[in-house]
Each structure stands twice: as C-alpha cells, then as structure tokens.
C-alpha cells in the first residue's frame, strides 16, 4: 500500500492533466468545426466532451486510446491484421531475436576486449562512435542492402535491434568482467588457475549484476530498434508500421495506441529480465 499510493496519486495527476490538455489542444479545431456547423454557445461540458471525441484529435483523450487498444486486442481475433496483438507479436519477435543477437555480440566483444589489449584499444572508441551513427538513417538502406543479399522479414529488423542493444551489453560486461579486484585474481593465480578457470569461476559470476543491468537497458533498446526498423520496412506489419501508417493517415489515436502497446511491451520485457535477475541472484546467494 505504501508503494502503491504515491504511484497512483501521480498517475491520477497525469491523467487529469492529460484530459485538460486534450481540451486545450483540441479546442481550436473543435471551434472551427462548431463554427462551420453554426453551433454557438456550446456549454463547457459539452465542448469538453466534443474535444474528447474527435476523430483525428491532436491529443486523443486517455479513454479514446484505451478503447482503441481494447478494440484492437480483446475485441478482435488475434490473427486479424487489425489486431494490435498481432502487430505486437511481430515486433516482439524481432525484438527478442535482436536482443539475443545483441546480447551475444555484446558479450563476445566484451570477452575479446578484456582478454586482448589490442582489441580494447582499437574497438572501444569505434563502439562508442557506432552509437552516434543515426541508425534511423541507415536502417532503410540496410533493409534494402540485406534484401539484396536475400535477407528479408525478421532478420533485418533483428539486426537493427542488435545494433542498438549490443552497446549497453558491451559497456556493462567490460565493466563487469573487469570488476573482480586484484586480490580475487591474485587468489586464483596462487592456485595456478588457467584463464578458462579464471573466466568461469571468477569473471563471469562477478559480471552477473552488470549483465542484468545491461540487459534491462538492452531489451528496451531492442524494442526501439525493432520499431525503427519497421519504419523502413512496412512489409509484414508490426507496431512501427502502425505508428507509421497512423502518422501517414493522420490517425492520431492509432499512433497513441501503438505507442502504448509498445510501452506496455517494454515494461513487460524489462520486468521479465528483472525476474530472471532475481532468480539468478537467488541461486547465487545475493543478499535480498
């Protein structure tokens, strides 16, 4: 209760502000409409309701978004092309595949970096620079380029997800694999442990907290990657395509609904990584 109440308060506050903002932002257009229909002296509460019920509002009211989500998920068959669950699933599969690629690549690079000085020096600056490349700009070309070598569908999206999500994993894992203190490494040296043993008995377990912290960031970024990729790859649908077509057709409610589904997806994914983390922590005896 102690934790729920403050969150609820803030949520209620946000929703209230949102409704108010919807009136304000949709008012000019509503005035035009009413003017055109020769409606004058509309009482405020009617006017408010009008602004909350526009077809293509500048800011849809919360209940409009909720009902769009409801209509797009529960009220539809899951296989329907209009189903948001269907589009969510498409984005999710690209996200998960990209996340798996990204985590794998990130860990591999981190292992290379901590074991090889030359890799450390030559790779690190470019890894940082890679993230300053606007992937949204490269994505369309990448999709076409991969298409040229016969890769279509899920894989190009997953590769873009990977491009974004490997970064936090490399950075975190380099930190994590280097986190054992000198004395812990010295201990293994006194046992004449080989580097394989040093890795599995010391570096890897020591890096676990860093891995999970990175994966939480990574999975959220993977989702962004999948959405960005879908902006450049409309075939097959997905939440990004819903965002795009919503934007193309001026369907604001559709944009917001896609956005909220994406947000929910991100929250669930991060929570899943979090529970995996807790499970591993329990097995590793981390203090609760």
């Amino acid at each position, binding site marked *: 209760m102690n934790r729920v109440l403050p969150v609820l308060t803030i949520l209620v506050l946000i929703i209230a502000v949102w409704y108010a903002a919807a009136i304000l932002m949709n008012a000019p257009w509503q005035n035009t409409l009413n003017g055109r229909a020769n409606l004058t002296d509309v009482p405020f509460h009617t006017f408010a309701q009008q602004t909350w019920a526009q077809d293509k509002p500048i800011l849809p009211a919360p209940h409009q978004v909720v009902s769009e989500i409801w209509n797009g998920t529960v009220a539809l068959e899951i296989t329907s092309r209009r*189903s948001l669950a269907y*589009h969510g699933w498409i984005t999710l599969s690209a996200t998960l595949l990209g996340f798996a690629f990204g985590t794998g690549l990130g860990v591999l690079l981190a292992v290379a970096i901590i074991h090889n000085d030359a890799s450390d020096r030559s790779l690190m600056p470019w890894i940082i620079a890679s993230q300053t490349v606007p992937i949204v700009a490269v994505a*369309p070309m990448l999709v076409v380029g991969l*298409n040229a070598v016969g890769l279509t569908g899920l894989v190009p999206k997953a590769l873009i997800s990977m491009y974004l999500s490997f970064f936090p994993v490399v950075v975190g894992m380099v930190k994590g694999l280097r986190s054992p203190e000198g004395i812990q490494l010295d201990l293994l040296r006194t046992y004449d442990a080989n580097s394989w043993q040093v890795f599995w008995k010391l570096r890897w377990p020591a890096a676990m907290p860093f891995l999970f912290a990175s994966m939480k960031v990574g999975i959220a970024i993977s989702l962004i990657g999948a959405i960005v990729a879908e902006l450049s790859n409309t075939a097959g649908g997905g939440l990004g395509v819903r965002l795009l*077509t919503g934007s193309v057709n001026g369907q604001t409610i559709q944009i917001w609904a896609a956005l909220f589904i994406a947000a929910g997806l991100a929250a669930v994914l991060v929570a899943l990584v979090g529970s995996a983390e807790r499970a591993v922590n329990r097995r590793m005896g981390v203090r609760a």
Partner: protein
Amino acid sequence: ADALTLQLKWVTQAQFAGYLVAEAKGFYDEEDLDITILPGGPNIAPEQVIAGGGADIIVTWMAAGLAARDTGVPLVNIAQPFKRSGLMMICPTESEVTEVADFPGKTLGVWFFGNEYPFFAWMNKEGIATDGSDGGVTVLQQSFDIQPMIQGQADCISVMTYNEYGQALDAGYGPENLTIFNYTEMGNDLLEDGLYVLEDSLDDPAKVDAYTRFVRASMKGWAYALENPEEAAEIVVESDETGAAELDHQLYMVGEVSKLVDADDPALDMATYDRTVKALIDQEIIGAEPEGAYTTVVTDALN
C-alpha cells in the same frame, strides 16, 4: 510459373488497386505468374530496392524514375497506366492565396522523397524562388497528411486528389473554402505511377514475355477495379497487412483514381513524357535528354 516481385511506391492503398485486384482475382495466376507485391512507405525508395535486386518491377513517378536513371540506375518505363496527375496544391481561404501571384512570402508544404519534382518544375516555370530568398516561397517538408493545413503551419499544402484531398473534404474543407491548384489542369502535370524495370533485363526475351503477361494481367485488374469499385476497395483493405486501410476512404480513392487511369491502354503518352523530360532538364535534375528511358516492346506486345 514466373516469379516476379513488384515494389509499390507507397503503403497498400487503392492507388494500386489494379495490381492488388489482379492478384486477388487470380489474373496473375491465369497468366502463369507468381507475383509478390511489396508495400512501400515514406522511407522506402523503390528505385533503390530494384537496384539492390529486391524487386523486378517497381511503381514510381516518372520524374523520380528518370532522376534515378541519371544517377546510374538504368530504369526503363514499360507501361504507364496513370495518364493524368492526381497532384494538387490547396490553400484554405485564411491563407489569402487565390492565384499563383499570391505565393511569394507564403509557406508551402511539399512532399519530398522523390515526389518533389513536379512542384519545383512548376515553381521553376513561374519563376518563383524556392531557396528561401526574398520574393520566393518558403518550402516545408510536409508530412503525408493535412495536419499542416489544419494547424495553420503551412499556407498551402500538397494533396493527391485520391487521398489527402479526401481527408480535407472529410475535415470540412471543400471547393468553397479552398483555392485549388490542379497540376493537370494547369498543364504542369508530370507522369505519375508507371511501371519500371531494369534495362538489362529487357535483353532477355523470357523476361520481356513475363513483363508483358504482367502488364496484361494488371490492366485486367485495373479494368475490373474501375468497374467494381466496392469490391476493389474491399480487396485493398483485405490486402493491407498493417490493418490501417479504411474501407470508406479506399472506396473514395478508387473513384478518384479511376479519373487518372486508362485501363484500356497502358502505353506511354509521348506529349506528357516530353513535358516531363523538359521540366527535369530545365531544373537541371537530369543532365541531358535520356536515351532508352522507355520501351514500347511490352505495350506493343499486348495487342
């Protein structure tokens, strides 16, 4: 069956009804073709897709096609179902634009991504500067809807007769509170949706034959769509994988598109072709008169 991939210029909508109907009604199957139709979008350049081998045939506007040819993608027009342009510029009365002379100092919304050539050709012809200098117009990269007009961010916006104009009508705009500049009526129209392939593929008679059957089936699709607008609109909605297409709007679009398409004759109209080429050369978008940018082998073989 011969497998061909068609890359559309835009998202799945009735602008491409002929192809979607041909696919849905089995006209391609009848011609022993296996067609994959790829939707496009604001970040997809069909010219690039075909250059990368991702498609065999693309739908694009002639100006963009010729410009691509100039940059080294040897595109060749094999058929031109769209005879007229659906492009317009509309200005609400508040903008106080009633004629071209009112443009200087105004902000105009224009679509880029290969759609900008007709506008610049028009301005070029009128002698109106577009580079932000005094006495010229301010150009906005317009989103693909009418929001900029509703919100007053632009004085005039670009619309297609079959799409955004319908949105404007829905939003309560109409001829009575709009000034409309129709590119076709002004004689400024450049050719729009045509079918393009890569030049070297035309050396292969089997390919040419497949293209011919493709165009024949597609035109059959167009004819069917124009005769049965309701069914065509339903097919479009059904074909849209994103679930964003709305039946009413697609029906409107079929109706408007029917005014632009000649379902009986997909051959290139040379007068408009010449105008398009001249406009591009005037603007220095292409360097010289293109050679071999179109072929009549396919349309000739149809009959």
